[in-house]
């Protein structure tokens, strides 16, 4: 696969549907899942563009789902060679380009390690799926590939021991990522205690910042960045503003979505309330303050594919357009 150009060269600022008036933000994005179909990817990208998006979060993870992996099952999608994957995704890349959509970020299949899973499957995830995901990312000229850290603290005894395993994995793909100009982004996740979603990997902003800096220093390149997931942060009560400002420029990618603070619902921001006043129970003001404080200048990307499952199919375009309008509102808040 061809090595990407330097990010600064190609990451030109793009408009957001209406003449690029929000100059600080590079674009608005959303997941391709439920919109871009393999049979006719160009149509899906055109729909995203028409809704007001200029970027997309390519849902590579849906080619090998977590549901099947947790059942210790896998399909043969990543058995394809890199060239075969390129051929497979050529219509997608072409369709995105023609529609004027840039693939800003991509999600690697997860989990990349299954505790108590079959050894062959774990080796396959680590040694086959992960490097090929980096290659696919580069093929799309997508600079940011989001990965999930390992959820092993219960078994290994501490978050530090868990991170050691994640770091070992990151080192296994960092050289390829560096070569291909891709930044691997770790994401704040949750764990489960009796159905109560609690802090999981990468929920400590200070530690994440230190680790990112250390690893990037080691490689002399930005091989590692951060993906802030608003929904996950809301579930475990993180202070958005503090977390974002702690990360600063290490924050490369966003997963914007909302929930009730109980379940990982991936719904439209401002959806949930908990009081009679009906004011949003997710701290969107803190989110905006945080992004403003670090002068966030990348893509406002929504991880709201489940919204398209809950709305009637006939309303897909309208639902996407509404999400894009919210993105524009966020953008205005950041540029004002």
């Amino acid at each position, binding site marked *: 696969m061809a090595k990407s150009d330097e990010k600064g060269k190609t990451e030109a600022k793009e408009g957001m549907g209406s003449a690029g008036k929000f100059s600080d933000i590079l674009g608005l994005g959303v997941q391709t899942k439920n919109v871009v179909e393999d049979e006719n990817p160009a149509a899906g990208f055109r729909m995203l563009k028409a809704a007001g998006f200029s970027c997309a979060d390519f849902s590579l993870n849906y080619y090998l789902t977590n549901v099947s992996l947790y059942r210790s099952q896998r399909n043969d999608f990543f058995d394809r060679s890199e060239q075969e994957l390129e051929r497979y995704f050529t219509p997608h890349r072409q369709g995105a380009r023609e529609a004027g959509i840039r693939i800003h970020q991509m999600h690697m299949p997860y989990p990349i390690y299954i505790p108590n899973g079959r050894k062959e499957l774990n080796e396959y995830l680590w040694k086959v799926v992960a490097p090929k995901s980096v290659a696919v990312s580069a093929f799309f000229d997508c600079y940011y590939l989001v990965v999930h850290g390992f959820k092993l603290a219960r078994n290994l005894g501490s978050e530090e021991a868990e991170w050691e395993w994640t770091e070992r994995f990151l080192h296994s793909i960092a050289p390829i990522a560096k070569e291909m100009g891709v930044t691997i982004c770790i994401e704040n996740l949750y764990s489960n*205690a009796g159905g109560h979603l609690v802090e999981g990997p990468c929920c400590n902003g200070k530690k994440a910042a230190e680790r990112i800096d250390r690893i990037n220093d080691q490689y002399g390149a930005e091989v590692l960045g951060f993906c802030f997931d608003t929904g996950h942060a809301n579930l475990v009560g993180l202070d958005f503003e503090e977390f974002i400002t702690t990360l600063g420029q290490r924050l490369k990618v966003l997963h914007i979505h909302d929930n009730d603070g109980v379940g990982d619902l991936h719904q439209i921001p401002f959806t949930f309330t908990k009081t009679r006043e009906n004011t949003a129970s997710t701290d969107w003001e803190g989110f905006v303050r945080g992004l403003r404080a670090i002068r966030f200048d990348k893509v406002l990307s929504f991880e709201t594919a489940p919204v398209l499952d809950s709305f009637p199919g006939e309303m897909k375009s309208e639902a996407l357009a509404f999400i894009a309008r919210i993105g524009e509102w966020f953008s205005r808040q950041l540029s004002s």
Partner: protein
Amino acid sequence: MNISISTIGIVNANIPGQGTQDIANAGFDKVFLEFGVFCSPYELEEAGMPAKGERQSDRISVADEPSEMGPQSARMLRMCQEKRLRVSIARAPYLPRDTKRTDLQELLARLQEESIRCCGEAGCNYLVVRPLFAGISAGQEWEKNRVYYLRLAALAREHQVMILLENQCRFVNGHLIRGICSDGETAAEWVDRLNQEVKEERFGFCMDVGVCNLCGQDMHAFARALGKRIKAVVLRDCDGHRENSLLPFLCTYQGQPQTDWLNLIRGLRDIGFDGELALDLSGTASGFSPLLRPQLLTLAKAVAEYIRWQVEIETQLGKYPSVVLFGAGNMCRNYMKCYGEKYPPLFTCDNNPKLWGTSFCGLEVRPPEALKELPDGCGVLICNIYYREIEKQLRELDVKNIGFFNDEYMPSFHFDRLKEAGSDGEIG
């Protein structure tokens, strides 16, 4: 580690006889006193405002006159003394998390001062004083609280009281998220800076497990960040979404606890916690009929002792000159993984004759009869969940020094579990 119990939901502050007696009868000898019972968060919310409707008012409101704290708490404190219940820890009045009042900082300071005086009189060494949050703009938290806490330091010294800061939630339109002192490292820094300013250890920390749970926090990491600064732990259960103070282990979903007890216990073990374990089951107690409270409190005592036992599990393992295990299954395997090197057993026993003479995790598996000939002082640790049946069997074998091991809250776990043994109903 001291165990105490909050009086809220159990003791009526005006008629404290029965509640304090119930507490004493359950075997507690220490209580966690909430001064909030004399000046509730909602009373504070209305401080200085005209009384609404028929406000019951033959008593002077402590919120209106803080010096009333002493006289109004005197009856409760006297009753505790009578029942030989020591107030080992107390919490000063505080505002509701969704307060609209931003003008009460001076009143709060005066209430904390009165609380310190009351602690001094009761011989209580720890007073939890929640940080100020209402009316404090972002970025001003430390400076405002620094002044607030330092104001209390001299009086606290005079009354030999240590002031404990506490982790807080922040109310965001009904959603409770991480608030002041909920970051362990920052909280540790606050405690250290305050102590440096007063040139003595006058400040410590109280870890509210309920708040950690509401914020979905990694309690292992939180406890380790604060270390020995943690002088008290408020032990309470909740579903992780709504404020509640339930007896630990009551909040479960599909058989799993909704509070991450594993990481709490790991954290308290790692820091060698030896302070006040303050049980707050006010929500559970209020839900139970007064007729059932005595039984509930007996259970509460057993729960607190169990948590203490788990935190101090290594102390139990180290008290024997040598140990033998009973059980050659997962629990024995977990023992060997985490403690086998430090406390190596002489051998293990099992009731399954097929295992006799075999080796399991490096231990010889012997029949139970082998326990008849043990070195002096050797402990026999039951490593099987059928504790009571095996204990009975061991007593029949005239085994001395029977102890229990439990692997629910291990420092680490294997990635897999061995298949259940004894599917034929045989123990071991």
